[in-house]
């Protein structure tokens, strides 16, 4: 029996565990859409390809499985780019399938031809052009292997229309051709592990920095065990938030440019840092030269390029985080650490007094109230801007995959489509998207997807009639010369949401009870517009180029 390339593709996806695709059709993907009519895979027709990529990303982040998006050649493929880059920066395993012109037309500037592989080279882990239908199955299998192995990341598969349409006789499929890689030895890991354990045991003021890699390697249990056994205070990078239950007594909050005063101060005083699954991005370290000046730094990561990339590490160890931690835990002692922990406690009391509602003001209080009102197992998805910082500081994740945010790329417009993906991936969990008004408008078309499929996500739009974070930066660091940051209030967001078929309410952030209750009680999709004072900024904040200790607490600083 002969099968078409599209049929083989869908079968291979199904065999790899795919049950959902987020996509948008075009002439060059029609063979796939034709096959989707009958198969077991559900296709969600989004309203923009960027949203399809974010939805696949949100699905992957919420489930830990591979997210799949599909777009046609040319404009469809280029519309995916922001979404692929967002997934790449946060190591999210997604597969992007793109239609392509017929192989004989490749390179001829044919209608809707773009070299999408060339365009996405720097933002994919790898990519494939399937030139021959006999390679379809093995390429898809290889793509799945690559997207999840080692450090996860997006893989793109470009699919010429004639390859999708042509048929492959059974038994003629080819296996994937690759010469095995030569692996260079990376030293004696056990020896390095013992050194790290010794340094940790001997340290007087140790701190653990948890990056996004801990969740990616499913090491949240192990990291919690390590922290509790060694009585080690920890901080998160933005991507690490949620790895350990927020109420864990050793949690000091997230670090960096928009991080907490306490966490930044403690890292600065540490004499030993164990960094796990983080590349020390500039958002975490701010001015890297002044970062943790007193500390010996140990770093554990699966990706050799992340080790020593941005900061010189004294004790690097390249390996799977989960396996490494399992071996490390038995080597770690349980000291009382009274001095260090009580010093931190004192520090905590003063910083908490200074930064009420975690430095977020009313929106911080509001987010706390939303979390109270929603079920325990609710997933929060953030957008980018002040709303992201409010949400990451104030939402207290209790399980690893319950706070999703675009950390590395900082993509406005991420929250709504990613929330769609998260909800479809884990239907039994409530999903709340937090967005600013600016970011909300960037993928507003997805309200149509939400109402069409009746996807019961909750969307909270903080309306400060400004690009709030831009306004804060201009206010503080450009002598209040505001420019191109005012959005105004000419669009009625509640009416728009209702026009799309969602339930919607508007509340003031100071008096949100009624709106929150209605949202929590609603069964379907719901939008809550929350009016916020444009000057409600986040503090402390670190000026560009400064160190994590040069925090600013208000306009007068």
């Amino acid at each position, binding site marked *: 029996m002969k099968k078409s390339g599209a049929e083989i593709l869908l079968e291979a996806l199904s065999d790899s565990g795919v049950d959902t695709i987020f996509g948008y059709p075009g002439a060059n993907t029609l063979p796939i859409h034709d096959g989707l009519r009958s198969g077991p895979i559900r296709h969600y027709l989004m309203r923009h390809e960027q949203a399809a990529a974010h939805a696949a990303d949100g699905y992957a982040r919420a489930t830990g499985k591979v997210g799949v998006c599909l777009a046609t050649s040319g404009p469809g493929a280029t519309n995916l780019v922001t979404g692929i880059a967002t997934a790449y920066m946060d190591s999210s395993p997604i597969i992007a399938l793109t239609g392509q012109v017929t192989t004989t037309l490749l390179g001829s500037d044919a209608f809707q031809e773009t070299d999408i592989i*060339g365009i996405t080279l720097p933002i994919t882990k790898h990519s494939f052009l399937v030139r021959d239908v006999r390679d379809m199955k093995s390429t898809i299998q290889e793509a799945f292997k690559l997207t999840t192995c080692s450090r996860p990341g997006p893989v793109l598969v470009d699919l010429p229309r004639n390859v999708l349409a042509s048929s492959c006789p059974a038994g003629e499929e080819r296996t994937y051709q690759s010469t095995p890689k030569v692996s260079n030895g990376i030293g004696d890991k056990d020896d390095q592990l013992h050194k790290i354990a010794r340094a940790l045991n001997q340290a007087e003021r140790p701190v653990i920095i948890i990056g996004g890699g801990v969740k990616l390697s499913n090491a949240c249990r192990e990291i919690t065990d390590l922290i509790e056994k060694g009585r080690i205070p920890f901080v998160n990078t933005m991507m690490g938030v949620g790895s350990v239950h927020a109420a864990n007594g050793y949690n000091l909050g997230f670090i960096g440019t928009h991080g907490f005063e306490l966490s930044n101060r403690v890292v600065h005083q540490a004499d030993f840092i164990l960094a796990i699954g983080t590349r020390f991005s500039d958002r975490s370290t701010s001015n890297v030269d002044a970062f943790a000046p007193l500390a010996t730094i140990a770093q554990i990561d699966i990706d050799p390029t992340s080790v020593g990339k941005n900061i010189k590490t004294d004790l690097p160890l390249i390996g799977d985080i989960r396996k490494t931690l399992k071996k490390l835990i038995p080597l770690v002692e349980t000291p009382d650490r009274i001095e260090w922990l009580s010093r931190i406690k004192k520090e905590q009391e003063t910083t908490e007094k200074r930064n009420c509602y975690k430095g977020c003001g009313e929106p911080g209080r509001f987010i706390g109230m939303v979390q109270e009102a929603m079920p325990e197992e609710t997933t929060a998805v953030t957008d980018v801007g002040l709303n992201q910082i409010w949400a990451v500081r104030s939402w207290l994740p209790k399980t690893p995959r319950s706070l999703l945010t675009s950390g590395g790329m900082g993509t406005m417009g991420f929250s709504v489509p990613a929330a769609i993906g998260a909800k479809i991936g884990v239907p039994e969990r409530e999903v709340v998207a937090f967005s600013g008004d600016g970011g909300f408008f960037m993928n507003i078309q997805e309200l149509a997807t939400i109402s069409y499929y009746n996807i019961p996500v909750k969307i909270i739009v903080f309306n400060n009639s400004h690009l709030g974070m831009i306004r804060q930066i201009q206010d503080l660091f450009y002598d209040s010369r505001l420019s191109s940051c005012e959005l105004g209030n000419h669009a009625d967001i509640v009416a728009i949401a209702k026009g799309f078929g969602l339930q919607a309410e508007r509340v003031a952030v100071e008096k949100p009870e009624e709106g929150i209750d209605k949202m929590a009680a609603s069964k379907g999709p719901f939008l809550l517009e929350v009016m916020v004072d444009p000057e409600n900024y986040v503090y402390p904040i670190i000026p560009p180029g400064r160190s994590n200790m040069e925090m600013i607490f208000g306009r007068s600083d």
Partner: protein
Amino acid sequence: MEVKRHTIKLVVNNKPDVLARIAGVFSARGFNIESISANVTMDPNVTKIRIVTMGDTSTVTKIQNQLKKLVDVLSVSHVRESKQGQREMILMQVKLTDKNRNDVMKAIDELQCKIVTRKSDYCILEATGSEEELEILVQRFDSLGIEDLSRSGVVAL
């Protein structure tokens, strides 16, 4: 940080986009590729590439690590400074006039170049050697009148 010349040797899968991926790792850091040479090996599925770049050692190490991560790159090594295994080839078109003819012939003889073509008003010469040897060669002929030249890039074992 000291900027030095580095030669990186790669063994890669022989695929259409592999060179673009490799070039991308250099250009992303703003690094220039000084010279590059690629050729097939005994195994038709595999290509050997040598790249010469200028940079500080720590960044070049980072580039090597990033190259290793590329799916189609099978191995990466840093060619040590020892020059024995490194050769390069040059082709030069040198002007011939009544005035310089004798000097050109003398230089060809002394520097052991091979004459590929000889016309009445120019000749094309071929030579191989280490990069430094070829530098000396270029200097000598430059004073006599080079009209065009092309170098292969370093070939190393």
